[in-house]
Every structure is written in C-alpha cells, then in structure tokens.
C-alpha cells in the first residue's frame, strides 16, 4: 500500500486489447466498404418513392423503416455514406492543401509576408466559422460545391497556423541549419527537409478536423443550404424526418447514429495517431 496519494502512471489503456487506433481504423474501413458497395448492399433504390409503404416502422422488409415518401431508410443511410464520406474527405483536403501552402510560405519567409498572413488569419478566426461559411454560401448559393468552397475559404486557417508554428520551430533546428549550410536552396530545404516533419502534426489534426467538417456539412445540409433533396445525405434525412418525430422516430434516429459512428471513427483514429506520434492537439 502506498496510499491514495500516489497516482498510477500506467500508459493510457483501453478496455481489452483494442487500441483507439485499431478501433477507429476499423470503423472507417467499415463505412468505406459500405460506401463502395452501396449498390450491392442497399435493398432498395434510395430515391424510389413507394406510396404503399409510407411511414412504416422497422419491419423485415424495411429493417430501418420508411419515410413519408415511402423511401427505404436503410438504403438511404447506405447510399448517404458515399456523400458524407466525400464531405469529410474533400472538406478536409482543400483546407489542408491551401493551409499547408499558406502556412509554409508564411513560416519560411517570415517578414511582411508572415505579417499579412497572420493578420488575415486573425480576422478569419474572429468569425464563428459556421457564420462565415453561411455568409459565403449566401453569396454563391446553396449546394455541395458551395459547401466545399466555403469550407476551403474558412478552414485553411487552422492548418496554416499549425504548419507555420512547426516551421518556426523546425527552421531553427539543427538539421535545417545543416541543410542550408550544405548549400541547398531555400525551396529544397523547405520541401525536402522541413515539410515532412511539419506535415505530421497536420495529418493528426486533420483526423479530428474531419469530425468537425462532417458535423458541419451535415448541419449545413440540415439547414437546407448544403446537399439538396432528394439526394440521400444524413443531415438532409434528419431535417426531413424532424416533422415526423412524434409519429416516426426512425426517420431521424438512424441517420444520426450513422453520423455518430463515422465521427467516432475519426475521433478514435485522431486519438490513436496522436498517441502513436506523440502529437498533442
């Protein structure tokens, strides 16, 4: 007995032997397979309206029930995985690329370039991101494409700040100094020597960012400004079912569970990668 005063110093351990990394990757792969094989897995056409089976609770024929147009919820949830995975991927990739370029230019050159970028980042960050995205979507009109444009215009700042901070540390590190003293050009040092190190923390961050992007995309579609009906998307499905919650809970419940599991997959993967690479958010 060493008293209640001492603290366990064991590494974070999850129940059983399932690490967050494995669990997260497993969930994501499962959803990826669902999206790829949607035509094979879905029992019905996701937009086929069958007036005979409107607002049916879960049955053997329709395991997750049907909506007010008689569309099969299971088929719609499966097909929507394609759209929502796409949202999580493209909603991260565009900001990632723009932010990485902006952040590395800013961090590498410093001076007035850095000052300009930092001020711009301060201003963009002053806006609540959803508000700024909605304002942009107002101008270019609703739709999935507009969502990606708005996401890229607003989301790059996090990546730019992250990459810039890494650059500032790594720029003064021994191995970057060594590369410069060996006579390598600025661009070579930047892309061959600094970038691979700086990008690691962005990759870990992008996994937790994917959660935010997914929730954001679903929220904007829920508001009616993203993916447009009748396309099956989880946020759209929740919005469509909201009017029927007193009579048909299944329309809103299942797409929500789908979002939660996919988001959890990204969160766990972010936790696991962060732990594996020793990167803290």
């Amino acid at each position, binding site marked *: *007995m*060493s*008293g*209640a*005063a*001492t*603290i*366990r*110093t064991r590494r974070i351990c999850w129940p059983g032997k399932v690490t967050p990394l494995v669990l997260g990757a497993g969930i994501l792969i499962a959803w990826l397979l669902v999206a790829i094989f949607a035509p094979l897995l879905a029992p019905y056409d996701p937009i086929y309206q069958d007036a005979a089976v409107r607002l049916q609770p879960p049955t053997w024929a329709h395991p997750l029930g049907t909506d007010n147009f008689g569309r099969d919820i299971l088929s719609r949830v499966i097909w929507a995985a394609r759209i929502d995975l796409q949202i999580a991927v493209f909603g991260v990739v565009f900001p990632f690329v723009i932010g990485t370029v902006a952040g590395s230019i800013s961090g590498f050159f410093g001076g007035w370039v850095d000052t300009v970028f930092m001020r711009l980042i301060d201003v963009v960050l002053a806006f609540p991101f959803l508000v700024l995205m909605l304002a942009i979507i107002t101008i270019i009109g609703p739709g999935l494409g507009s969502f990606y444009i708005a996401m890229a215009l607003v989301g790059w700042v996090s990546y730019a700040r992250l990459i810039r901070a890494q650059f500032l540390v790594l720029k003064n590190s021994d191995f970057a100094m060594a590369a410069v003293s060996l006579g390598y050009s600025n661009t070579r040092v930047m892309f061959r020597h600094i970038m691979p190190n700086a990008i690691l923390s962005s990759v870990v961050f992008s996994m937790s960012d994917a959660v935010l992007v997914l929730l954001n995309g679903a929220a904007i579609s829920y508001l009616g400004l993203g993916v447009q009906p009748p396309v099956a998307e989880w946020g759209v499905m929740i919005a469509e079912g909201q009017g029927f919650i007193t009579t048909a809970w299944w329309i809103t419940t299942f797409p929500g569970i789908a979002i939660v599991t996919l988001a959890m997959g990204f969160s766990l993967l972010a936790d696991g990668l962060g732990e594996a690479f020793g990167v803290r958010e």
Partner: protein
Amino acid sequence: MTGARILSVENLSVAYEDAGGSYNILDDVSFTLRKGEILGIVGESGSGKSMTCRALMRLLPSSRLRETGGAVRLEDGRDVLGLSQDELSEVRGRRIGMIFQNPASHLDPVMSIGRQIAESIRYHRKLGRTEAWAQMLDILRQVGIPDPESRANAYTHEFSGGMRQRAMIAVALACDPDILIADEPTTALDVTVQAQILRLLQQLRDERGLSIIFITHDLGVVYQLCDTVAVMYAGRLCEYGPKHEVIHHPRHHYTAGLVACQPSSEGGTGLVPTIPGQPPSPRDMPMGCRFHPRCGAADALCAARQPPLEESQPGHSCACHHPADLVAEAEA
C-alpha cells in the same frame, strides 16, 4: 545526543515493480532521529536519499513503487507504514513537516502564501478564520519574512528564491511538527541565501527543539549544520555516525572518496579528485557490496558478500569488509 528518540527507521525497503520484474530502490535502511537532532543524509543523485524521505512520509511518487519491508516508528511506537489515511493526515501535518528543493513548484501558484498556511492550520487545529490568520502571521514572522501582513497576500511567483524557501518552511511549520524533512532545500539557492536558510533552520532547532532530516549532496553543508550523518550509496546506507567521526575518520571507502572530493578552503591548487566510475542503475545492481566495482580496496569477498552495517564504535557504524581507517592503520 541526549534527546529522546523521536523517529526510528527500521530496515526500510522500497521496490519498483513493473512488467520486467521488481527492483530494489531502497534496501534495509535504518537510522534514528532524536529530539533536537539534525541528521544529514548524503549521497549522489539516485542514491535513494530523497526516496527514503518520500517513503517515510508515504509519498512515493508512483504506484509502481512500494514499501516492501521495515517500519518507521514514531515516538509513541506507531508505525507510519501501517497507518490509516486519517492517521497519516495527522502525522503528515502535525508530526512531520516537509520542505522541498524547488519551492516555486511545490507551492500552489494560484493561492496566496497566507491562505496556504492558514488552510493547514484551520484543517489540523480546527481553528476559525481569524485565529488561523493571526497564527499564520506569527509563523511568517518566525521564519523571517518581513512585513508579514502584506506578504501574506502575495503569491509564490512574487517572492524571491530565498523568500520562497522561507515561505515553504512556514507552510511546513504551520502546525508545529516535531520533525522537519528538508529535501535539498538550499541546492537551488545562492551561497549567501543558502547560509541564511541554514541559519534559520539551526535557529528553529534551538528555539523549538525541532528535529531535522536534511538531505543534501553537499558535505560542506552537512559539516556546517548537522549533528549526525548518514551516507547512502545505491539505495543502501553505507556509513552512519556523528558528523565529526564520519567526516574526519571515514570508514567506508565511498565516504572517504566523498570527503576527498570536497574542494578544501585551504586553497589547494590541484584538481579536485573524483571517484572513478558511475553509480549503478537499480536494474543492474552489482552483487555483494554495491560500491565494489568503484572501490580501490575491493577484493573477492566484496564481490561475493554484502557487508552488514556494523557498529564499530559506539554510534558509528559502517558497511564495509575492509574499513578505510583500519586499512590506513595497517599500512602505517
């Protein structure tokens, strides 16, 4: 020493356990502390001197460390290692106080010094707010903090290094303990400030009859301050006795080495001698006497058998097969 026994550590052992096995960090450490005595525990970093004090306060820094044997007897015969949480609370605040090397990190940064002291007083003595505050001011005065009324409301970072250590002593003395454990309290301080803190500790001993266990790696400080010395090496006690005895007539070769390493004030111009080699790691302890790989007098016996800590003269004991003073006598 004439005072009554106030604390006796009997065969204290501590082990570190993990998947790879169990390693002895402390092995069979015994010493006693009398009322008004200042005991110095000396050793290199990693010798187990801090761990000894953490163990006898039951404040081991990890759950993988555990007391595997021995006892820590208080004046009334109770064993600290067997106390309940409630009894432990009482012992920690009112019997044994503790101060640390780095007061900046060992004081709560977001609570004023005065409130930290008053908090202990209120908790242990069940006093009211105003009474506790008055007592707190009194303690600040005793440890030599000027203008206690206004300094009581200051925070740790607003104090200088020396004042911080005084504040820390005040926090430890809040409930008038009999024993103060000082874990390298002057290591991080300037020499002049260090002297002030040592004088304060001596004064507290003289005025309050406080017994002090003073942990340090600096034999010079031991010589200035302590009555008795315990020398530790690799988790074991290798020599224990009155200050003058141990420093002027060291029997263990490790102690002799330490004494020789002290830069003398008589103005020697040569290089300070060092003890060759490195202290062993707990995972890789040598058989027999743990000092033998670095010892000039070691032989096959030293590598084979651990020498027991034996009292060769009254009050002076040593764990060595070939004690240094005897070797010297034989050579002479």
